[in-house]
């Protein structure tokens, strides 16, 4: 059986610390070093105060369900083995959102359901956040 290559990110310069942290098993979020606003996804400028100085904070790893979808079609061969796959739009405790695949039972998923963020390796170099209902 031929191994199917995973879909890997091509990080922007600003997001490198995000991916580096995930590889270490930690979800870190970009924060404006001047006004303190957390922003996601990472980008060069704070849209609130236009500062380009940032630092990185470790996320609590908790949040709630904002929305979700259950994908029954893979659109890329790397994801066929995961079908059906639930993707959750999560309101993180830090006030930003992320999209991540659900692991474990989808149960009675609903808007507001509490979730826990875990980190999962795609390969030796890349890891992504995943979601589990709390």
């Amino acid at each position, binding site marked *: 059986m031929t191994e199917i290559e995973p879909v890997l990110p091509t990080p922007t310069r600003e997001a490198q610390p995000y991916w580096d942290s995930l590889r270490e098993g930690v979800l870190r979020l970009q924060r404006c070093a001047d006004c303190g606003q957390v922003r996601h*996804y990472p980008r060069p400028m704070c849209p609130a105060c236009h500062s380009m100085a940032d630092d990185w904070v470790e996320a609590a790893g908790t949040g709630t369900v904002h929305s979700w979808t259950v994908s029954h079609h893979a659109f*890329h061969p790397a994801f066929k083995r995961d079908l059906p796959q639930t993707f959750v739009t999560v309101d993180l405790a830090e006030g930003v959102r992320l999209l991540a695949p659900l692991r474990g039972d989808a149960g009675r998923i609903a808007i507001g359901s509490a979730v826990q963020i875990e980190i999962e390796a795609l390969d030796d170099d890349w890891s992504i956040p995943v979601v589990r209902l709390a």
Partner: protein
Amino acid sequence: MATIASKAAVTGIGETAYTRGTDKSILALQLEASLAAITDAGLHPTDIDGVIVYSNGVTVAEDFITNLGLPDLRFSATTPMGGASCVAALQAAAAVVATGVANHVLIPVGRTGYSGERIAARVQQVPQFRTIGEFEMPMGAIAPAQLYAPMARRHMELYGTTSLQFAEVAMTMRQHALRNDNALMTEPLTVEAHQTSRMIADPFRLYDCCLESDGGAAVVVSRTEAARDMAQPQVTIMGVAEGHPDSPSTITQRPDLTQLGTAKAAPRAFEMAGVTPADIDVAEIYDCFTYILICQLEDLGFCAKGEGGAFVEGGRLALDGALPTNTHGGLLSQAHILGMNHVVELVRQLRGIGGPAQVPDAEIGLVTGYGDLGDGAVAILRRGA
């Protein structure tokens, strides 16, 4: 203050046959449609002095100079808003002809959505999907169906919108396509067929998703004064606007998942046109997914936020309904020609050449585009000056 309200007109329309399967290139399809639009306008190709090309870079302005033999192209641009590009291009073209930068602006599109690369491969090449490419595609969320589904799911959870209401949209588009001899779908769609069609990305079933098709379409935009003496009955651009949603690069971070860029464009387009939703006789609303049409009805002001599902019930979008919508069958049942087929169809309706799908006495009509990760564009056209 200067305005482009009613300063420009759509003077020519052209379409190729819409098919599933072609041996023509995207450029050839665009040229075929362009020539039809130029001829329809009563112009010669050398009269074209402006072109707005589709933003994916497959064709460039130089291609149109080279093939149409344009002696002096004075304006070229792109409006990179995915499926909202065609209607956004009407705004750019109107501004350009109103100010005399160019006289006759050609807006061509073409696509080989059926014969060419599949959707997932295409969106990975779109610059507007770069953020998604870095942060969401590596997790398996790749295609528009997957990326848009959380918007629909949240709408359903907040407002009680149902899959049966999605079916109502799909079935109405299908009924309209059956009256159109340039439509891909030729059989009626039942609610049972919709409800049992395979799930793609919940809540989107197969029949909630648009077609993949091959074809080209084009329009010519000219100054209103010039349009009076041209070949076709005049169709004036009363008002037109584009709107970019909050968090335009990622739906995930959008403060309100149930609002599109359409919500910003619509009030500006209606104000420029000097009309209200109640004045619209016929609407051509971008329908890449059934839900996206419902959401736009709300953002356009035809009903309040959350009421779009109930609004489409009872045949309101049908030819004999209160708001005849997608009289050609739309992206869902005619063909996916990036919504330029919507622009062409509205012009046909306002000229009174809508054939079996003609809305009687259609005088004022609306066309929208929707694209990428929530971009919207709205144009309001009227018959005559």
